[in-house]
């Protein structure tokens, strides 16, 4: 999950690398914004999952 956060963070910092401009039908800046928004939400979700896993492990350790 942490790898996923790293991967998504890298994608956000270098969006150009993840896209093929020839496939974008429309404003490429808006396209990039759309992807960054999506990946940002996914990072939040992955972080929430990490928190759940950590809570589970804490209970399991007890």
């Amino acid at each position, binding site marked *: 999950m942490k790898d996923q956060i790293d991967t998504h963070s890298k994608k956000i910092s270098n969006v150009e690398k993840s*896209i093929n401009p020839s496939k974008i039908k429309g404003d490429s800046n*808006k396209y990039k914004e759309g992807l960054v928004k*999506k990946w940002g*939400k996914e990072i939040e979700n992955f972080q929430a999952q990490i928190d*759940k896993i950590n809570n589970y492990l804490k209970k399991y350790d007890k």
Partner: protein
Amino acid sequence: MINNIKPILKEGKKIISIVYNNILDVDTIFNGNNFVCILIVNSSIFVPPKIVSWILKSKCKYLYIYGQNAEKIENLIDHEHISQYENFNIPNEDDIITMAIKNESLSEVLFMAFNFASFQDKSLDNILILQIEKTFSFVEIDNAIKNTKVI
């Protein structure tokens, strides 16, 4: 239609496992509720457009893409998804969390799907295991389901 598909029930979870070869009618089995999809792509670099389009229109809210080329396929699905909307802006209710998984075991993927997949803070109790090609036998999948803990 999916004929003769019996969901597996396990501690509040409803799971169905299919190899893609026909039009899907998962909504009926899941009563129109949101679900998690584990899309097993193995070494495929291609997912039939019909499947991508079906997933994006379905009630799938959490998509694990599992296999050697998972990341490439995730990029392709993300592209198709945001391209459907004006200004590439996916409304919150249409979000689908996508996650590419390459090196974990099937049981580990199931463990995450059973226990940690959530959408907008709600857990997802319906799980579809969808294989593009037959990577795992139904016995292997059944065994992985039986051996995966719901916590």
